[in-house]
């Protein structure tokens, strides 16, 4: 099998540290790197890896809504394939809470090019490690905050809940000047329909530098409207209740007792 025309890679969250050996190999071997990263040192590092490293930052403001900007980025990358080995490097995991990878993949396929997507370390992976949570322990719901509110997604208070992009609720365009207060109040109201007001929740921001601690702040759900949240804040809400296993299903599976 020949090399893919477009390899889409994730740089992880922590500057330079989260680049895997495999990702590094593709970056070194490519003829051109398009990138969108979260941190200036990582940007400098990428530029050192390849003489032809091109930031997609300039496409951020070409449309009023972000989704159109992401489509433009995907198409821009695909249009430059021309039988070259190109890498698209995106911070975090390229297909986790990031539209550009899928858009670029679709655009490249539409033009008849082969693609490969490699995983990276996402903010959620960091959250599980830093908060010492195993999402399989009682299941885990992971929602984008605006999506949760707009589509009235179902909550489950017996599972872990991770809410992404809580610092930019309702911001469909450029969020640099976004006022998040109304969104936080609406989110609080929605969560209060399922969780107690004094249920402790965590605002989390993964560390972007090796040997630096993540930002972890505990507060009660009722305090959510007043909290300062940033565009990289993620909320973690621990299960509020435990549920009992279904006896009929246990019998049907031949399970006599569950381990404590």
């Amino acid at each position: 099998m020949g090399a893919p025309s477009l390899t889409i890679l994730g740089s992880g969250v922590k500057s330079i540290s989260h680049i895997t050996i495999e990702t590094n190999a593709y970056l070194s071997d490519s003829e051109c790197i398009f990138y969108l990263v979260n941190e200036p040192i990582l940007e400098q590092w990428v530029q050192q890896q390849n003489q032809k490293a091109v930031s997609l930052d300039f496409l951020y403001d070409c449309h009023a809504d972000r989704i159109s900007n992401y489509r433009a980025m995907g198409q821009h990358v695909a249009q430059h394939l021309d039988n070259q080995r190109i890498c698209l490097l995106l911070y975090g995991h390229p297909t986790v809470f990031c539209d550009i990878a899928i858009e670029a993949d679709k655009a490249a396929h539409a033009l008849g090019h082969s693609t490969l997507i490699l995983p990276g370390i996402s903010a959620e992976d960091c959250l599980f490690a830093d908060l010492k949570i195993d999402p399989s322990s009682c299941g885990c719901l992971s929602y984008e905050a605006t999506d949760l509110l707009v589509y009235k997604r179902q909550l489950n208070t017996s599972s872990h809940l991770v809410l992404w992009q809580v610092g930019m609720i309702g911001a469909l365009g450029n969020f640099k000047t976004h006022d998040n207060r109304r969104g936080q109040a609406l989110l609080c109201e929605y969560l209060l329909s399922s969780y107690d007001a004094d249920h402790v929740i965590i605002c989390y921001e993964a560390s972007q530098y090796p040997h630096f601690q993540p930002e972890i702040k505990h507060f009660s759900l009722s305090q959510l409207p007043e909290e300062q949240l940033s565009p990289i804040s993620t909320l973690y809400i621990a299960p509020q209740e435990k549920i009992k296993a279904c006896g009929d299903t246990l019998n049907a599976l031949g399970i006599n007792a569950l381990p404590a």
Partner: protein
Amino acid sequence: MDKVAIIEKLARMPHYCTEQVMKMFAQDELLKKAFQNNTGSKLRDAISGGKYLPHATRALHEG
């Protein structure tokens, strides 16, 4: 000061000695302070001069 080299060096250190890192940050007060207080956001401010890079995020989709 080559900040890329410093972060790359930190990334390769499973354990570090504070003195060793402070030596690397010696020429830059802001970096030194960020490291002493272990504040990643201050380090980023010190490195970027407060100019954050835009973020790739998920946009709201239909359905």
